[in-house]
């Protein structure tokens, strides 16, 4: 196992009503880890714990082999060697760009280092400006340069792109990725944007309501979410209600093969990614005026149609995303299933479709509430 450069062991912190942890997390040297989670999940608190702005109630935090926080040790933030870029950058408004960057430096060697950093972040010639004279992207780069100036052991970024315009983000992301790779700096950054996390991070930690759900590579997170939450939060997951019968799981889309033994009659949720859902148009009128929505195959809908599950339903929503469209189909059982289709294919609203699942070994989660 590679060296754990930053390590949180059994950390728990209480902040008023909110409680984070207990959880453990380790980051290797030079690794770029994203902390992903919805707002209020404790992402920022996690960063503040590592930076030293919050004290854990339990557990310990180790940085580069030194315990910086546990029940007996405490290292002040200013002595941790942790650089932090705040969500709204926290640039000192009364100092120029150069003075901001030089803030953590000793007087003697600051001048050369400042111009080096300015060059690094592509802000030559901005040295004399004040923060309020800069654009959001420029401010972000100054904040980054400022935190890099002291050669921190760990760099923490709190929602680095959230204050930028949407069209500026991809560009800034690419720039940051390049820069961090060049510096080989151990970095932990926080985001609520899955795309951002997947693009930048070596590993992604998913947080929910103060608990660490999973930490893994982006690919594994998508393929094998450890929890139902991760499955739903990352990408769009269809979760179908099912029941174990013999060696298969019965769902509205037919039978799936049971991958691990479960007692007969167990209720489970079956995860199917939208790209694994195929649609086939049925030759019925696209629109039926009769009040009860056409649910023709009432009798056979729940029936087993063979090894690959399939069912029928109505297209109820369509959403275009890039070159694809996400189509929501209401099945005859009332469950909704989303399918990813090329933008060209035509499935009009209220048209009847047949739904087929391509995979036969889907992930299984215990049903909600259990």
């Amino acid at each position, binding site marked *: 196992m590679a060296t754990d450069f930053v390590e949180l062991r059994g950390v728990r912190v209480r902040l008023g009503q909110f409680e984070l942890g207990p959880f453990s997390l380790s980051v290797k040297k030079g690794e770029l880890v994203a902390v992903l989670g919805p707002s209020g999940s404790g992402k920022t608190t996690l960063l503040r714990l590592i930076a030293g702005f919050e004290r854990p109630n339990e557990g310990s935090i180790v940085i580069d082999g030194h315990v910086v926080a546990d029940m007996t040790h405490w290292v002040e933030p200013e*002595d941790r060697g942790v650089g932090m870029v705040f969500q709204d950058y926290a640039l000192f408004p*009364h100092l120029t760009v150069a003075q901001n960057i030089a803030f953590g430096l000793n007087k003697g060697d600051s001048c050369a280092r400042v111009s080096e950093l300015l060059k690094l972040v592509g802000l030559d010639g901005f040295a004399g400006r004040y923060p309020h004279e800069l654009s959001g992207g420029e401010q972000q780069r100054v904040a980054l340069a400022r935190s890099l100036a002291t050669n921190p052991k760990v760099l923490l970024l709190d929602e680095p792109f959230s204050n930028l315009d949407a069209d500026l983000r991809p560009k800034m992301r690419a720039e940051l990725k390049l820069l961090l790779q060049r510096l080989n700096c151990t970095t932990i950054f926080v985001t609520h944007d899955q795309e951002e996390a997947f693009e930048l991070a070596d590993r992604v930690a998913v947080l929910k309501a103060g608990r660490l759900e999973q930490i893994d590579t982006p690919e594994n997170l998508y393929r094998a979410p450890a929890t139902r939450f991760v499955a739903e939060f990352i990408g769009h997951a269809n979760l179908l209600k099912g029941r174990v019968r013999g060696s298969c799981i019965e769902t509205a889309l037919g039978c799936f093969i049971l991958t691990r033994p479960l007692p007969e009659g167990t209720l489970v949720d079956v995860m199917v990614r939208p790209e694994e859902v195929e649609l086939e148009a049925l030759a019925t009128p696209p629109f039926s005026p009769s009040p009860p929505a056409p649910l023709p195959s009432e009798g056979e809908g729940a029936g087993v149609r063979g090894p690959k599950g399939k069912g029928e339903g109505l297209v109820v929503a369509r959403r275009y995303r890039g070159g694809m469209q996400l189509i929501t189909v209401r099945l005859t059982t009332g469950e909704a299933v989303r399918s990813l289709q090329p933008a060209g294919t035509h499935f009009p609203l209220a048209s009847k479709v047949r739904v087929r699942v391509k995979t036969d070994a889907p992930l299984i989660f215990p049903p909600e509430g259990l």
Partner: protein
Amino acid sequence: MALPLIVTLWRGLSTEFSLWATLWQARVLPLLGNSLALAGAVTLGSLVLGVLLAWLVERTDLPGRKIFGPLLVATLVIPCYLIAIWHVSFWGPGGLLERALAALLGASIKVPTIYGFVGAWLILVIATYPYVYTLARAALRSLDPQLEEAARSLGAHKLKIFFKVTLPLLAPALAAGGLLTAVYVLSDYGVVATLRYETFTTAIYKQLAGRYDQAPAALLSTVLIALTVILLVIQQRLWGRGRHYYKASQRALPLVRLSVWGRGAAMGLVGLVLFFGLILPSGVSLYWWLESIARPNPAAALWGSSLADLLRYAGNSLFSAATAATLALVLAWPIAYRAVRYEQHGLTRLAQAGQALPGVLIALALALLLHRFVPSLYFTIWALIFAYVIRFFSHALQAVESGLARVPVRLEEAARSLGRSTVSIWRRVTFPLVAPSVAAGWTLVFLNALRELPATLLLRPPGFDTLPVRLWIAAGEGFYAQAAAPALVLIILSLPMLYLLRVGDRPEVRHGD
């Protein structure tokens, strides 16, 4: 409103050069030295005290800080000339302290004199620190905590953070508070007169009251106005610059934990400030009042300190202050409306000129003007009320402006689109929404007019004595027991100020000089 300013300047600048030459050496230079020394020292003192107290209350775990927070502004309830008078009657020669010491120890011990620079400095610092304190508190609160955290993550230690981040960020607020203090000291009459320290205001007052030729007074006034205007211009500049520094932030910074000694020292400091500013003045007023009851002076009747007289003075004070406040707001409304809705601020600035003028100067200028152009108003209570309006107009204006600024113009447009007339809109939409601000502004003008002293002394019509005038005259001749009753009534009438302070932490509350 700006007329007094212009008249005084014109008078001052049109005096013969020979007078300038004579007065420059004998009067202007020493006065300039005195006034600037005092203003500088007081500003420095209240900056240090104000910031320290604000920091203790906002950023440390000082016990009782929730109570001390507002209490430390409550010294504004007591007019500062009263603070000065009661301190003199306490520490001064033959005062309460010496009497008590003599009674307790049997030996007569001389307390070091309170008169002069040091005494004036001390009292004025006590009187003015709330300006800095409130501004510094607000600034500390609005300071983005992330900035200090960012500094820490860059390896900066507490001292460096304070001097390189916190203090520079507070600087605009501090500069504003400091300049407010300096302007206040320049315009103060009551404290320096009580503590026998000669500044421009006392010199001008003496010239006015004791000379037939008013050219020297106008000349001294011109110099004082020049000083004040310089300070105000600087203040405007700094205020504008500091604005964009502040950012509202949800997260509060952790409180600094004081050591046992630090806690003791902090409590001592807060206690001392409250003792000087609040406890001693109110205690001494009570003492003298009780003495006037316990040992009625046969001469008391001569001093007009019977209940009927007291009610008459209170009635005079209330009437003139209430009228002035109402008039000020009625006049302020259209000007503020114009300024806010049509972004025309020129008139506003001009109308605020009165704020820059010490009461003595307003009285002087108004006397000159009325005497020449409207002699029928000269030395009537209307002259007095007009002086109050000029002097405190900026409070009314600011209150209405800030109120109007909070009523989106869209609301009025919506009302107009529903077919309402302008007056109807004002009545049914704008005014109800602005009413709280208007009420606050009214109270502010009212309370400041209630305690106004120098202009009242010079402009009051014969037979029209207000509470401040009565207590000032009695205390001026050393009859403290006779000054106690009007003083107490004045303090009680000022109590609504506590509410105002609680509501807005307003730095513009004046001390009534």
